Every structure is written in C-alpha cells, then in structure tokens.
C-alpha cells in the first residue's frame, strides 16, 4: 500500500580516521544488580552522576575537561551537571532514551570530535525502570492511534512473539522452537561472571522449560530485564586520548532508523535494516564479520539475537538455530561470543548502553572471569532496529 516502502535511505555512516579519530577513553556504570532488589534511593540524575563519576576516574580526566555532554533518558534542566562540577560545560544535549539512543548519541559524540568542535565528550544513559515501574506496553497516543491495541495487542514482547512464530513456520522449524532457550541460557552464563549484572545465577534447560509463557511462544526468560541503572562513556579526540590510560578506537558507526507499520513487527524480522547497517559499519572500518571477536546484540527479546545473527551475515536466513548449535557457537570459548556481559536479558535492560561498555572492556582485555574473551581486538555492536558500530584496539 505504502509506496514509500520502495525507497531506501542509506545508513548515515562515519569512520573518523587519523587526526580526527575518535577514541573511547572512559566507561562507568552503576551497580545494576545491587540496585535491583529494592526501591533504590537514587534518582535517575543520581545514577547518571554515579556512572559519570566512575567514567571520569576510569579515564583519568577532570570533569572540567569535558566540553560536551549528551544525556539520554534524562529530562529537564540538567542541575546534576553542577554536582559533577560541569556547570560550565560547552555543549549539552538531552536525547530520547530509546533503543536507538546509544547509537544516536555516540554518532553525535563522534561527529563533534571528528568535526573538531569537541575534544572530550561525555555520553550518559540513565533510567529507573524498576523503581518507577515503567510500563513498556504500547497504547498509542493522540498522534498515532494503534487499532490493534483494542484487542490487547499492546506489548513489544507480543510483536516479537509474532515474528518468532512466523519465522519458525516460514523455515519449517516449529518442532525446534525450544532451541531458543540457548539464547537466555548462554547470556545468563555470561552474566554470572559480570559482577554488576542483575541475574548472576545460571538458567538451566529445565528452568526454561518450566518458565511461564508471557506471550506464547515467548517465555519469561526470553524477555529483557528492566532495571535501574546508568552507563557513561567518555570519548576523546586522538591527541587527547593519547594521554589517557586505556583508550580504544571507535572505528566506525552507522545509524539507521527503521520504523515498522505495526509497532515492532517487521515482515523480514528486522534483518534487512540490520544487514544494511552492519554492512556499512564493517566496510567503513575496512573489516569483515570474520574479523569480529565479540558480537554485542541489542536483545530486548531473545529471538532478536537469532534475527541479528542472520542480518549480520553470520549465517543465512533461516539458519540461525543451526548456527548457534544450542549455544555452543555464541558462548565465550565459541567462535562468535555474543552478549558477553549478559545483555538486556541478564545484565539488565539499558537500551544497548551496557553492550557498548562491555565492548570497551573486552577490547581492553579487562573483563575478568569466565566472560573474558582472550585476545579480543574487534567488537561489533548491532542495534536491532538498525544501527551498528565497530570498536577496536587503537
């Protein structure tokens, strides 16, 4: 019906090089697991302060050296900048804290540095999904009435349940539906060695089998874990990064915003948008998927991991269950470890920001315990609705 659908915009891509290269020099997070059990006493702004404080310490940078701040998920006058001693920051931008926010804010940060406008940029995401009992169900608004909500089709999980069921039928995999369990099982195993993850206990096949359906065919462990927390990242120009302790390189970034017709349902299970953005990010970085040591995938629901593997070209369409081999391929120690901090399912749902912090840890080689991927030098982050970035050693 919609003739616009034939027109494809190219992903907006940046690959800053040499003098204008962009480095990630500091990461900081709140303790997601510690904040999870009870109503936490920190405001969304406090959580941002905690994460930024740690990121600045990590980078060895004074707050006054930061010349731009990009904040996702924080509204209102940013009085918390004063708490940090950043009341005279050059540029401040508040952004919507959606699943696109990490790719969007990091693209902005990279552009400021690549253009020479900024030398040190702080990006932060903060949310109190658990304490505030944030409702992710989709009712629509005055601007966009969603007719299917009248029938109760009003949750993002239902849209992914529909895509997964369609996928299983299309590829003749209905009798292998339970192999999806490998995704939450592997990610929970990864989260066990992440000291700040929400879920640090393993999930067994039996646990998964006994778990209740939320919207069938998806079960509770297939859903992400909304929690309280903040993630901060400090970016620096190449000359300024050279004075910091452990810079890594933001080699390339590609942004693509694909809005579906019915909420989250895409007829191609989002693989087309992923394919286009990953292709742009990899080619801009001058690498191929075979060079990627760790894949971080935005996983609000577990089928997305399989769709993203196919979109990223790890295997053909309909082959993801074969590819993951009940988790053997995507666990640490396998050929393509995925979501090594536990991802949105197990570390906690922070709109993809936790994935980027984990990418930096892996490239630095500072990830401890069973989650550490030896000799990791290239990480690819994939956002499910479009967007990708490549993080490498400097």
């Amino acid at each position, binding site marked *: *019906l919609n*003739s616009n659908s034939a027109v494809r915009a190219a992903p907006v891509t940046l690959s800053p090089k040499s003098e204008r290269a962009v480095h990630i020099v500091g990461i900081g997070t709140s303790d997601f697991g510690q904040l999870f059990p009870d109503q936490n006493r920190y405001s969304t702004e406090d959580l941002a302060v905690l994460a930024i404080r740690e990121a600045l310490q990590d980078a060895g940078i004074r707050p006054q050296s930061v010349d731009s701040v990009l904040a996702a998920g924080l509204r209102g006058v940013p009085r918390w900048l004063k708490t940090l001693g950043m009341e005279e920051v050059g540029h401040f931008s508040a952004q919507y804290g959606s699943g696109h926010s990490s790719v969007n804010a990091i693209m902005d940060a990279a552009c400021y540095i690549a253009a020479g406008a900024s030398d040190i940029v702080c990006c932060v995401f903060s949310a109190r999904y658990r304490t505030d009992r944030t*409702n992710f169900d989709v009712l629509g608004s005055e601007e966009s*009435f969603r007719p299917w909500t*009248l*029938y109760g089709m009003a949750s993002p999980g239902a849209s992914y349940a529909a895509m997964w069921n369609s996928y299983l*039928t299309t590829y003749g995999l209905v009798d292998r539906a339970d192999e999806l369990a490998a995704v939450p099982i592997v990610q929970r195993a990864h989260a066990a060695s992440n000291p700040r993850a929400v879920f640090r206990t393993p999930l067994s096949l039996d646990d998964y089998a006994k778990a209740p359906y939320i919207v069938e065919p998806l079960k509770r462990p297939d859903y992400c874990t909304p929690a309280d927390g903040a993630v901060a990242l400090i970016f620096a120009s190449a000359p300024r990064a050279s004075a910091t302790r452990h810079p890594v390189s933001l080699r390339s970034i590609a942004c693509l915003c694909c809005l579906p017709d019915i909420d989250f349902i895409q007829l191609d299970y989002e693989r087309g948008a992923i394919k286009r953005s990953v292709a742009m990010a990899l080619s801009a970085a001058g690498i191929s998927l075979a060079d990627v040591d760790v894949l971080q995938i935005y996983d609000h629901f577990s089928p997305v991991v399989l769709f993203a593997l196919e979109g990223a070209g790890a295997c053909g369409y309909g082959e993801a269950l074969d590819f993951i081999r009940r988790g053997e391929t995507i666990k640490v120690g396998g050929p393509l470890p995925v979501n090594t901090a536990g991802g949105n399912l197990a570390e906690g749902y922070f709109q993809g920001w936790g994935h980027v912090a984990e990418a930096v840890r892996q490239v630095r080689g500072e990830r401890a315990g069973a989650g550490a991927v030896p000799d990791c030098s290239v990480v690819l982050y994939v956002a499910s609705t479009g967007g990708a970035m490549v993080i490498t050693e400097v």
Partner: protein
Amino acid sequence: MQPEAIASGIGRECRGLLENGMLPIQICHECEAKWFRPSNFCPACLGSDIEWSEASGRGRIWSKVVFHRRPRISTQPAGGEEPYELIVVRMDEDFLFVARIAKQDSGRATIGAYVRIAKDGAGLPEFNLNSDIL
C-alpha cells in the same frame, strides 16, 4: 490510561469505524494511494485530500500469539480472558492487522490459512477462516 482517552481526531474516527465492524483504510484523492495506519496525511505524497474507505477484509494468517498475561492496560482487551489468542493477518492490500479469530475457527487457524473479516457481528471485527479459498 484507557484506550478511549487516547483516541482523538483521526484516531477516534478510525476507532469508531472499527467498533462498527468495519476494517477502515484511507485513500488519497491526489495520488490514489491507499493505506491502513490512521493518518491525516497521505504517506505516499503527503497530500491531505483523503477519505475513509473499507479494506477487502481478506488476507492470510502471518502469525499468531497467545497472551498468557494481559498487557498493563486498564480495560479488558477484546481478545477475551487470558489466555487469549490473537492472529496477525497480512491483508490482501499488503498491510498487517491484528485481531482475534472467531471461536469456532480458532483450532484450525494455522499460519498461512486464508481468513476474512466477519461481517455479521456487532462491535470490533474478528476473523473467520475463508472457506471460499480453503
């Protein structure tokens, strides 16, 4: 928040048509485009000379889901008591619509089956299996 509270303007019109058992689409008099998602603007040419029309009501089941837990909306969804099944239909005009399948057909409503909007019920449209094609 109840669905009633949010449907104003074009959304309220769409809702009213649905509650009369019609599956509404919009047509553009400037470029002849037809679309489903309620909008004050034609998605093809951005024109605003647009009018309601009725979809064919025919399509095939693209997927289906079973709600074991109701979304956090305050009104009873028209899907029924949990667990309730909803089908995602790829309509002949090539848009997706989500609704319930008529009770007598629910056991046979497999993905790929042909369905059509039931015309005889009051209230929201629901789908029947389309036996003309089966």
